[in-house]
């Protein structure tokens, strides 16, 4: 429990540090309020806000990644258990990973990784 407490204290210390930097900046900067300016578009007046629906072309990769990421949920506990369980654990996990890799290879052949 005190491990988490120390983590919380570290977090608090980090936040205090960041806050302290901001406070220091208030003192030392040439003006304490931020300058509100238009976004930089090479000297032109921006015609549109940049916040928009951005086309992330790598969205197929995110799906493949999600599959593997869920698999990592198993991977971390498995890592702890392998020395105890022996070869069967290794076999099962790597069969599972093999299946996932087959999916990755298929995705690659389908061109999911191009135009990342």
């Amino acid at each position, binding site marked *: 429990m005190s491990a988490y407490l*120390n983590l919380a204290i*570290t977090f608090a210390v980090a936040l205090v540090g960041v806050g302290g930097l901001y406070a220091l*900046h208030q003192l030392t900067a040439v003006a304490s309020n931020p300058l509100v300016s238009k976004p930089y578009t090479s000297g032109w007046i921006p015609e549109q806000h940049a916040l928009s629906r951005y086309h992330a072309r790598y969205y197929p990769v995110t799906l493949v*990644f999600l599959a593997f*990421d869920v698999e990592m949920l198993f991977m971390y506990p498995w890592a702890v258990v392998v020395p105890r369980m022996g070869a069967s654990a*290794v076999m099962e996990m790597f069969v599972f990973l093999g299946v996932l890799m087959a999916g990755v290879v298929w995705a*690659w052949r389908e061109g999911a990784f191009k135009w990342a």
Partner: protein
Amino acid sequence: MTPGAVQQLPAWGPLAALAALAVVALSGAMVNDVLAARFSGRRGGGFAPIAEAARLLRQRRRSTVAADELLRRVGVAGLTVAAALKVAVLPVGAWVVSDLAVGLVWFNAMDVLVWAFVWLAGWGQNSVFPLVGGYRFLALALAYELPLMFALTAPAVAAGSLRMGDIVAAQEGLWFVVWMPVAFVVFLAAVLAFSLQRPFTAPMSADITGGVTSELSGVDRFLVLTGRYSLLSAGAGFAVALFLGGGSGPLLPDWLWFLGKTVVLLWLLVALRRRIPQLRPEQLMAPAWVVGLPVILLQVLVVAVVTINGRSS
């Protein structure tokens, strides 16, 4: 089975850890400047971090019209905070701030938070170039994250535990880097990637006028730049703990060894990254998934097999 890993006193433990992180990160930045000065033929060098800090403390902060201030601030401040939280589970010799039973997973969780922070910083600024930079970082992250996760699994399998102290202790006989070199290299590459260093500086590169840092100035920019070096230092520290035996070494106390190894590895990374050209995310994606992933999986397989045989014999 778990020597070491003594809890720090709560009062000054985190402070000491963060102070150490700051010093190490500063040393990395100074070395970078020394190398830059030497390359361009200037005398001196090494004071760039101080000059940048002074300049940025003087500089006014900036905000764009209709920017998403809250998200931007979270993104900007988050990098340093993530590095600080990483360091909290790092065992420096026999001391650790937080002896988490799942310290390795915590480390991974913190660098996944970096995804959020960089993207938030890019989104919050409401400007084209930071937005492109933020999404570029996600493209890079999708490529390196899985190899990183598997590379983290390898020492865990060998040590049979997710606790950082156990992993360090399991290297008593032989450092993991000797028989897990692939995992080591992949881990270092991932460290460069999540701390936005070359060759993974696409989110902040010149062709999008600084990308995520494009509209930042003053203390915001300072936090992002500090965050980068802090993450690099924390990553170097973890590389030492996971692969280079932690604090083991003759004669000197183990915390000194640990810090020494971390600093040396950090300086090596700083020197190495200057020589690598920058990668575009789409160049990294296919090789990382099609080549990197099978290779690291093979490494984990090898580690698992060796561990089982080691136990059974």
